[in-house]
């Protein structure tokens, strides 16, 4: 017996120029906020962009975007709706606001299913909001989308950075391109994370100071794009 879905994935993604996975070793570093704002910033710059929430068990990009009442269109596959100029796909269209308690094999199957049936249009970028860690989603994405590039988000915490070492080590072992490391929610003046990133021979993209206005911008993309956080992420969009 053969699972036929895997064979169609390359064809589904062939009109997408670049696939960028926004990832982290630990949760709570602002990865979903970075992924969503990066995608919105790229749209603002005139690119055609998709955003795919791969954090199946704890999705949050739909909340950041404030989407309600939209669903993919069924047309020889699933056509992601256009949300604030983004083609947006998430498991929440099907799980709603309820829990989706998935184990590893279920995560893999859901990922394969969505990659096999989602009809993205011609895109310059597909930004993927990853779940934290180096589990099934990371390994499956690398297996199924070998040209994926990773952007790693960390905070200033050495605990978070310790997991960056593990994630970047894994990606290097698998020859997966790493765009660089972004230090998010920075509250001190130290350059420890920059120094340690460079010691790992990785590109330190930039630091983004903690922005207390962010919380009030959740659900309001225009408001989000007006924050100082978004201005920084917009600069990241230039570098990728």
């Amino acid at each position, binding site marked *: 017996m*053969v699972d036929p879905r895997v064979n169609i994935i390359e064809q589904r993604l062939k009109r997408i120029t670049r696939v960028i996975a926004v990832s982290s070793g630990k949760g709570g570093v602002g990865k979903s906020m970075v992924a969503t704002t990066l995608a919105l910033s790229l749209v603002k710059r005139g690119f055609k962009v998709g955003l795919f929430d791969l954090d199946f068990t704890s999705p949050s990009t739909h909340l950041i975007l404030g989407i309600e009442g939209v669903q993919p269109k069924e047309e*020889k596959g699933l056509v992601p709706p256009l949300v604030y100029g983004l083609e947006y796909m998430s498991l929440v269209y*099907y799980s709603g606001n309820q829990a989706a308690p*998935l184990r590893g094999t279920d*995560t893999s199957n859901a990922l394969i299913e969505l990659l096999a049936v989602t009809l993205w249009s011609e895109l310059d970028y597909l930004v993927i909001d990853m779940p934290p860690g180096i589990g099934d989603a990371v390994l499956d994405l690398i297996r199924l989308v070998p040209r994926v590039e990773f952007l790693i988000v960390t905070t200033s915490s050495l605990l978070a950075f310790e997991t960056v070492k593990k994630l970047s080590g894994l990606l290097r072992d698998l020859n997966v391109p790493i765009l660089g490391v972004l230090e998010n929610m920075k509250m001190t003046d130290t350059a420890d994370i920059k120094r340690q990133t460079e010691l790992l021979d990785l590109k330190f993209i930039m630091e983004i100071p903690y922005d207390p206005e962010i919380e009030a911008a959740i659900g309001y993309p225009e408001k989000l794009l007006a924050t100082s956080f978004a201005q920084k992420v917009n600069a990241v969009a230039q570098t990728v």
Partner: protein
Amino acid sequence: MHEWALAEAVVKTAVQIAEKEGLKQVTEVTVKIGELQDVERPIFRFALSQLIPSNFKLVKFRLLRSKAKLKCRVCSNVWVFKKTKLNKDAVEAIHFVPEVAHTYIKCPKCGSPDFEILEGRGIWLESIKGAK
């Protein structure tokens, strides 16, 4: 109509296997369809007929049904999924992504959503026959 996307995957895979096995004419392709996903067979069959290449003109698609058998990881209860026990929206959600079954289905014995899909999840290409 998302059956079309699944049919495309089946045809692409069948073509790859036929090439690998040196089949000049493919005469039979057997596909197992899990009841959890509840694929609409007439649409799926029509899509298959529209997507086949020339060396599949004689092909007969055998579509087998596979009951959705679930096993609770907490109490080991094994049961067969019946879509009539769910509301229309839940059935439709599971149709698109069968894994959201964990959102809508609970073990009838202990109420846990932590179950394994033993069989009958979605589409499987079971076998392919043809002439060399």
